[in-house]
């Protein structure tokens, strides 16, 4: 079975740093980004099984990425991390087809579980 791929985008470098070894241990191929512009470029180049993205960022937001991916590669499951979830944004993300919402601060174990679930479902 081929490795499932995950793109993790958060403008906090520590998040990617900590998540990378955890997800790799779960058997994923992991790419880490801290700038959404770069991540978007990467998404144009190849598709991932799962996208884990922060919501509010400088440049394109998590919502923009979600919109983009649902058009270009609808099979990609998206997990949205937010620092501050409002009802509207969660509704909007749900409507756009986000797989799951996870609020900061989160547990890496939970996130890893979610990613595995998303990868299986996708």
């Amino acid at each position, binding site marked *: 079975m081929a490795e499932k791929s995950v793109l993790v985008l958060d403008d906090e470098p*520590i998040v990617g740093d900590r*998540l990378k070894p955890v997800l790799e241990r779960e058997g994923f191929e992991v790419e880490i980004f801290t700038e959404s512009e770069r991540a978007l470029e990467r998404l144009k180049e190849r598709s991932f099984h799962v996208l884990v993205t922060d919501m509010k*960022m400088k440049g394109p937001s998590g919502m923009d990425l979600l919109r983009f991916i649902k058009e270009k590669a609808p099979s990609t499951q998206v997990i949205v991390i937010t620092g501050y979830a409002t009802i509207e944004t969660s509704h909007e993300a749900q409507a756009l087809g986000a797989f799951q919402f996870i609020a*900061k601060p989160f*547990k890496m174990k939970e996130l890893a579980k979610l990613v595995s679930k998303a990868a299986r479902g996708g």
Partner: protein
Amino acid sequence: MSDPPVANRRTSHSPPLQRELEGAQRAILSRPSIPIRHRLIFSLLLCFILCGLFGLVALTRIRQVRGQLDLLEALEMLYSRSLRVQLLERQEGSSVEALRDARARVEEAEALLAADAGQRRSPREAEAYSKLLSRLADYRSLLGRLESAVDVQERGREMAAAQALEAEIAFRGRDLVHRERSSVARLLRSSEMLFGTMLAVLLGFFLLITFFFTRALMDPMRRFQAYTRRIAQGDFSLIRPARAYRDEFSELALAVNQMLAEFQTNQEKLIQAGKLTAMGTITSGIAHELNNPLNNVAITTEALMEDFKALSDEEKWRLLQDIYFETERAGEIVKSLLDFTRDERPDLVPVDILEVIEATRRIAQNEMVLNDVRFELRAPPGLPLVRGAANQLRQVFLNLFLNAVQAMPGGGPLTVEVMAEKGLGRLCVEVRDEGIGIPPEHMPHAFDPFFTTKEPGKGTGLGLSICYSIIQKHGGTIEVTSERGKGTTFHVCLPLANGEKTGAEGPRLDRGPAEA
């Protein structure tokens, strides 16, 4: 922050305001009261008395003239009648009745003359009158004798004497008629003068009354017009006595002051509410910003705990360092939030404007970063302190920064330039954005409460009106210039902490070029 007891709420002005209100009301009430009503009644009464007096004078004048005319008539009658008696006598066998009739008329004339004789005459005139009177008396007795004379000879003698007397009476009478005529003419002429002067006096009096009443009514009216204009512009300072006495308008001033005090309390509440709104706007940003270091600490701790045995000492050290710095970062955010919302006393004290701007920038930082707004501060070294309340000034700049961020949806530069104008005793801050700009038709309303072009739920329209009242309370100015599509600049000027005002005028406010 506990609520005041409910019972107090409606009347609970802040104590200094209450004191100020009491002071103003006392100043208004302490003047002697001269109500307009009393002045009106007094003036009308005076007018009435004057008219009555003049009427009385005119009446006595008319009576005088009538008396003179009566006298004149009597004299003339006498004069023509003596001629008639002469005629009568010339006819032989004149009847006794005719003589009696003539005598009665003479008596009549005598009575009239006697009545008039006592009236303000010069000694010469009085003498002329008494002489005429004595001749008349002689004539009357002569006529009596003529009546009873039967003997023709005797009759002839008496007749001759009567004729001589008649001639004298006629002469004297004519003289007196002449004199009386000219006296009547004099009286009439002087009456003309008198009435003319009375008219002039009355006219003058009316003009005076009109002048004083228009002044008593128009001056306060104009003053209150100015007050309403000032109030409309958001200047809620209390009305002070403008005159040395008080009247009905003072009652109005008292009521207006009461209203202004209410306005001021409401404005304080509005400022408080506006602060919360502005904080609401940045709360999401703050939460986001605070959650990031918290999350970093959480996941780093988790990593440490999970892999504690497997990790090398070096890796453990790196993770611990991350935790340490992320905790510090969270602390900084909390501190800046506390700095920002710290409830200082609203006293005006020396304040470093750069500190205010920096604290505001920190709190709005996240909002700017997320919207790709680049913040640039230009300030020369060694800026003087301004006189202000730091927390209120932070609120002003937060509103201006948030407006600028919201005016640049695609991001852009937000430039803050600080310059001291020592000569004018003030320091000015320009907050410049390159956003959508304010269209000219919106310029006059930019500072109005509740004026907003933002969609419902996004903007309350209170931001700038609160900035305006805060800066006004500081004795400063806030103006806006804008070019559609190019950007907007807010100019905020504040008095220096130790600056002497060079202009004679007190705090003045301009609402930007759009307001004439």
